[in-house]
């Protein structure tokens, strides 16, 4: 079956809360609009946490399908995005935990530097090394860094996504940054 993808603006006059209510009643068109509006950000979040496209693709798909199944139980329709993010981040954490923290070296195009401008070579080396250091981190540490540094989420939103108090977010962000620094140090000392 070829799906009919309807962008968010194809449902004029509908607020997100209305779309969520309709989707919760089984309205596929409303859910399509929600997917179209949120899929890009969800995928980029998963991609940053998991580090490769196939895993990110699966995690994004799983999160939306879980959201579709659970929508009838969502009471706070205005909190759809935060709720979806929480499902997604938890899914990414589960994937990383089940992976047994086996370290993987990303091999896809995002890390292909063969055509890089020599003028930015140093920057490329730095971000590559930092990306490898990031791969050393455990799931929760990755997730909190992505929410803060990639998505620029406020502390309250991170607290909601990770199901921890706001005060703990600040403390864990501090610890996460320290962990990344240690990982970076270890990465710099490893022969490559």
């Amino acid at each position, binding site marked *: 079956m070829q799906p009919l993808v309807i962008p968010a603006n194809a449902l004029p006059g509908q607020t997100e809360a209305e779309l969520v209510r309709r989707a919760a009643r089984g309205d596929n068109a409303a859910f399509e609009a929600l997917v179209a509006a949120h*899929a890009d950000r969800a995928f980029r979040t998963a991609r940053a946490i998991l580090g490769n*496209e196939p895993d990110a693709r699966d995690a994004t798909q799983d999160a939306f399908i879980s959201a579709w199944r659970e929508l009838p139980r969502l009471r706070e329709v205005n909190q759809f995005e935060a709720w979806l993010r929480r499902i997604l981040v938890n899914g990414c954490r589960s994937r990383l935990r089940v992976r047994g923290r086996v*370290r993987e070296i990303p091999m896809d195009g995002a890390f292909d530097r063969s055509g890089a401008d020599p003028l930015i070579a140093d920057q490329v080396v730095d971000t590559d090394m930092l990306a490898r250091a990031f791969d050393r981190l455990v799931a929760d540490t990755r997730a909190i860094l992505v929410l803060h540094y990639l998505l620029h989420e406020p502390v309250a939103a991170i607290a909601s996504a990770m199901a921890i108090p706001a005060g703990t977010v600040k403390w864990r962000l501090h610890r996460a940054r320290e962990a990344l620094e240690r990982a970076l140090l270890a990465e710099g000392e490893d022969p490559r």
Partner: protein
Amino acid sequence: MTTHRIALTDELIERMLAERSGSRIPAGLVGAIVSKSAVTPQPRSIRLPGLSWNLRPGFVWLLVALALALVVIGGAIAGASRRTAVSPDGGGPMIAAQFYPAGRSPTSIRVFELDPATGERLPLVELPGVDPSSFGVSMRAVWARDHGHALLFDDFGRPRGIVDVAHHSLIALSPADVANGDDQVTWSPAGDRFAWLNGPAGRSTLVISDVTGRELRRLALPTDLSDLTQPSWSPDGSAILVVTAYGCVVCPRGPRAIAVPVDGSPSRTLLDETSGNVTRAVWSPDGSSLAYSTSGGISTMTLADGRRTVVTSGADIQLAWSPDGRRIAFTRLNADAERTGIFVVDSDGSNLTQLTDGADDTPIWSPDGSWLAFNRDQGIIEPSAWVIPRTGGEPRLVVESARADW
């Protein structure tokens, strides 16, 4: 050795994550989600007013009577099948913890024993006035070997309470600084103490506490150890095993398993891998050998002579010895890591048996070694606890939305 040091700035982290997140969503992903949702049913609640619009009252009563009859007949059939089915007694009760009621704040945490044969719950303790967000979404309780006490962990692997089973009491612990998250705590074989890894790499200590939460001693660890994880108390109680260089692929020195004597004497290296990626190392029940997992599979090493035996070759993690030390259960990831299954193999590598296939992990042996408990990820937030006979068969759900120990 080349050394390249860079300054970690906010801007660099942001740039790295922006690159890592990819420039755009893959083509077809939105369509794939929409297609899948279109064929995925949503659970629908029954709205009684709707019946009055479509059905006459007499027909409704007929439906109710039929439903009651089905319940009575179904109950009789289920009762008969329960009597004839193999009962997962397992040689002891399971333990689990849940929020009660769920979805409220503050709420309570209930820790309960679970009869794996009947699903009956025996409440052990209740911790009231809990802010659920401070515990995360996935608690677990872990038995001491004698089932006299249990540790309650939050979602971040931090011990948050000690359950005294005989007295139905709980000692709440402040969230502690446990290194690296899950699996950083180990019970002593006598069940009277537990040890946990505390502090960052390079400054880690092993803290030993008694069942009242009182700290008994701190064991300093060599400062050249990095990424410590997975403490495992030796069966004779004399030493605690830790794995170092966890997750490291190319390291100045290969992953090692270090035995740290409880009496404070110098630690010694038991396992020194020049390559590979040791993810777990566990004493055999009689203490004569170690089983360990690397990115290439599971092996054992006899401590007396260092003899190594390759047990499995695959992406195998979360290994657990059977109580009699004859078998090893583990989780295997398939090639694309999409599915995970529970496997059992004899400790010499023979009789490899796949028990489950799907989204299952964390095998735990029953005390008598006849059953295995495992977590099954059912797609949202919290896994459920299932059991299966060691020899294979139909898995059975024991408790939803909770992880159980046996």
